[in-house]
């Protein structure tokens, strides 16, 4: 560059940008966020990161979705679209009853109201998208755009504000400076699994997570009643939030008992929860009659279904390779076993949260509680891994040291791998490859390994297994007589990793609870 005038900086200018010289942390994401760290560009951080996150989400959404051009049943996209027409075209009393074989509504009422709102807007744009019977399985590209917009808009109204607030308050509590907070925020935003599931496969998980994390935000700022309100909203959007319920319950109960028993608080919390549930179900009762509540609950908890669906990296599915449960036990025995196993699994988390109800423990508490549900409970989907995964990812705002980030990154990488069979079926192989590798690179996967030899061994070993399985699947292809070979391999690797991840998170939770840093709270 030829520059004629020597560069002169006026004093006001240089005085304003002070933090120029701080070197970035040593991984690509930290380098990318680095220019935003100067004090004059702080206002840029949020809009820029949100725009980048949006662009990647939208670009993933250009791909196909679950059940695209796949008759007869299509997939989750069709389910969501169908709920929009059920709720807009039928009276409330038929919502949970209408033709249950064709993607009958089986989510709690808040999802129904949300579908109603989106369906209402969509019908204004093009009534043929939501015409009830005639519109089954429509594959209009403009409808796809509309549906993708509805996911992004819902996410930006719930999940995004929740994590903005979370990083702000939790990051400050953990002593992160504004640069580190930007890194943590970006790392949470670029979580690969949520992008692939919500914006690729097509679901509205982020709304549930948004409410759940808003609840956490409220707990962090001592707004316990608002927190329980939001948590009930989360439950009423998607029953999956139950994975967090024991942890939240134990935490709130702990706050009522320590340092001394506080009955008023306990009463108010209980009253808020009950009142919120009543408000959520009120429209169903008012417009449809009281029997709707029962039908809704029957639809939401399908106990008649099997122990697990498809191939999931949890205890039952993984050990089923060796022990064929369905040959030895009947449905109710298995249900009881899984209930007991889950209860045993959540016990440590609940006890820690009850005796040490500290704000700092919330993300890891939610994560460990959800891990035991994912590993041992009944009716688990591969997508449910998001539940333990996201609170664990939130812990980026708790610590950015190499050890912590490497473990969180590792779990995220493995979780993306566990979604491979699903995404392959959806025709999202390209998006899986690009987003998976991109995230692994962003977080500096191979440059940042945990401190101890055990961690290094686990990480490198599991990455080798992941790469090996992918290569083998490409090279060997389908094996005669073992149609699910690669999927089972995937399940076994992921199950092993998830158990270790659970163990790591539990141990970390225990350390945080005992850490003297938290005694002052």
């Amino acid at each position: 560059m030829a520059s004629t005038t020597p560069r002169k900086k006026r004093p006001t200018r240089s005085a304003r940008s002070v933090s120029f010289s701080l070197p970035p942390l040593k991984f690509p994401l930290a380098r990318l966020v680095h220019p935003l760290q100067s004090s004059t560009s702080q206002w840029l951080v949020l809009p820029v990161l949100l725009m980048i996150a949006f662009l990647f989400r939208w670009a993933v959404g250009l791909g196909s979705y679950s059940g695209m051009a796949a008759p007869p049943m299509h997939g989750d996209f069709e389910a969501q679209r169908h709920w929009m027409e059920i709720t807009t075209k039928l009276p409330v009393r038929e919502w949970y009853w209408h033709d249950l074989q064709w993607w009958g509504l089986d989510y709690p009422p808040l999802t129904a109201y949300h579908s109603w709102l989106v369906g209402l807007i969509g019908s204004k744009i093009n009534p043929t998208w939501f015409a009830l019977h005639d519109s089954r399985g429509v594959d209009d590209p403009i409808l796809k755009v509309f549906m993708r917009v509805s996911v992004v808009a819902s996410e930006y109204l719930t999940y995004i504000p929740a994590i903005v607030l979370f990083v702000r308050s939790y990051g400050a509590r953990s002593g992160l400076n504004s640069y580190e907070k930007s890194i943590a925020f970006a790392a949470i935003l670029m979580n690969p699994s949520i992008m692939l599931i919500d914006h690729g496969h097509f679901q509205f998980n982020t709304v549930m997570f948004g409410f759940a994390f808003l609840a956490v935000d409220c707990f962090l700022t001592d707004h316990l009643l608002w927190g329980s309100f939001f948590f009930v909203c989360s439950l009423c959007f998607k029953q999956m939030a139950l994975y967090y319920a024991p942890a939240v319950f134990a935490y709130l109960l702990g706050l009522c008992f320590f340092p001394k028993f506080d009955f008023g608080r306990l009463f108010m919390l209980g009253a808020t929860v009950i009142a919120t549930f009543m408000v959520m179900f009120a429209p169903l009762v008012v417009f449809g009659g009281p029997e709707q509540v029962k039908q809704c609950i029957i639809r939401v908890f399908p106990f008649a279904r099997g122990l697990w669906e498809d191939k999931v990296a949890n205890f039952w599915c993984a050990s089923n390779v060796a022990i064929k449960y369905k040959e030895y036990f009947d449905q109710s025995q298995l249900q009881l076993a899984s209930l007991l196993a889950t209860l045993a699994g959540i016990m440590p988390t609940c006890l820690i949260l009850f005796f040490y109800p500290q704000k700092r423990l919330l993300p890891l508490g939610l994560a460990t509680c959800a891990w035991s549900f994912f590993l041992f409970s009944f009716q688990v989907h591969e997508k449910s891994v998001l539940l333990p995964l996201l609170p664990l990812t939130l812990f980026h705002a708790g610590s950015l040291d190499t050890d912590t980030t490497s473990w969180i990154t590792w779990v995220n990488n493995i979780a993306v791998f566990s979604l491979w069979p699903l995404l392959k079926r959806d025709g999202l192989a390209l998006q899986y490859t690009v987003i998976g590798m991109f995230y692994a690179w962003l977080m500096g996967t191979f440059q940042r390994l945990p401190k101890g030899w055990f961690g290094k061994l686990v990480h490198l070993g599991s990455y080798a297994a992941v790469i090996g399985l992918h290569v083998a699947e490409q090279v060997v292809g389908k094996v005669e007589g073992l149609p699910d070979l690669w999927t089972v391999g995937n399940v076994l690797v992921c199950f092993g990793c998830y158990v270790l991840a659970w163990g790591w998170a539990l141990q970390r939770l225990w350390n945080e609870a005992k850490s003297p840093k938290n005694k002052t709270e």
Partner: protein
Amino acid sequence: MSGLYPSLKDVTIVATAFKLLLLPAYKSTDFEVHRNWLALTHSLPVQKWYYENTSEWTLDYPPFFAAFEWCMSHVAKYFDPRMLEVQNLGYDSFNTVLFQRLSVIVTELVMVYALHRLVANSPEFTKRSAHAIALSILLSPGLLIIDHIHFQYNGFMYGILLLSLLVAKSSPLLSGILFAALLCFKHIYLYLAPAYFIYLLRAYCLGPNFSIWPPNPAIQFFNSLKLGVSIITIFATAFAPFVWWGQIPQLLSRLFPFARGLCHAYWAPNIWAMYSFMDRCLILIAPKLGLAINQAALSSGTRGLVGNTSFAVLPDITPRVTFVLTLLFMALPLVKLFMHPTYENFLGSVTLCAFSSFLFGWHVHEKAILLIIFPFSLLALNSRHHLSSFRPLAVAGHVSLFPLLFTPAEFPIKTVYTVLWLIVFLYTFDKLAPSGGVNEYRRWLMDRPATLFVIVAIPLVTYCSLIHGLVFGDRLGFMPLMFMSSYSAVGVVASWVWLMGVYLSN
């Protein structure tokens, strides 16, 4: 951007990940154009390349580009050999799309290399500026829209152009060779040739002692010989076979189809777009002023969208008029370049040549705006005046590309990406531009109209992409295009006038 973080490599990886995700995005007929060229160069002897017309998208780039397609076709056959059949019109299997999109991404690495050179060669005190400029070019919304969605190979060719511009300072010979080769890839770069000609002549072929009065030609014979031989060799490599086969008239008729109209289908934002806009406005008020209206133009269905434009009130424009105007406005900066052949004047006159051919040329494509933006980017941080004239161009030039993508799925990408780019880089440039010599009041005077101009873009884009469709449906389809290009033309012209002033007064 502070320091040299993120590095060029980091940003390249992020951009590549994003571009790969755009694989299923909308692609224009240019995708099929290039597939057809792959097929015809692969399966036909060279003698037939410029005669083949199975597809309506005949080969109309110079021979090097055809050879480039031929090279790529040898990789393409491993992806999907069916894309290489000339008869297989409109073929777009997943592997075809994958290969073609990947080929754009991979060949763009030439540009990444050029940008790496830009940063590496710049002196320490401008390194940070050079780095910011390099990132802005790498992430250019123009390239994203034109290359990675619409589909073309500009990244690769602008990479060669940037290399040529960068080495012009230290090695004019190499610069000339690169530019000659570039012309054999795509002849649109002829727009810049006058500036190259003058610069190479004055700075390389004539010695430093050259003066007009007293006459002292000071010709550097050896330099002239080297340059002449190299350039002739390159052109001979490209065109000699066709001369031998007597195909030059056919080749030229493919490269320069003069039968086209004044304005291209999407109305490039130039003087003629403003002229057409004025004509449309005059139709409304002509009866009151007692002006004659050309009825034939009124009823013409295309309204100047394609083919020959005829104006209803204003006089018609002939190719000769556009040619004379273009040369005239090129001559101004070139005279100065001839007198003072500095590197900065060279970059300035390259930019100004691009400006005048874009603004006054015949049948200009809106995509040619990159021809202005990239050379100008290299200058943008030289002074605050340069930055002030760059700003309206950055806004108008990119907004004018929006009509290229009209599908709803790509609307959020083009708008959000462009807005993001403008926020990040105009902010960064503002921090990095030297502030010397411009007082607060004059800056206020310069920046206020620019801000106003930017703000107008928001309702305009909303109207053109949303409201117009709701109000008029499919009728008056030319109107949003005309608004967009007239608006953008204002920005481009303002930027041009400003830069011309800065250049001539410096």
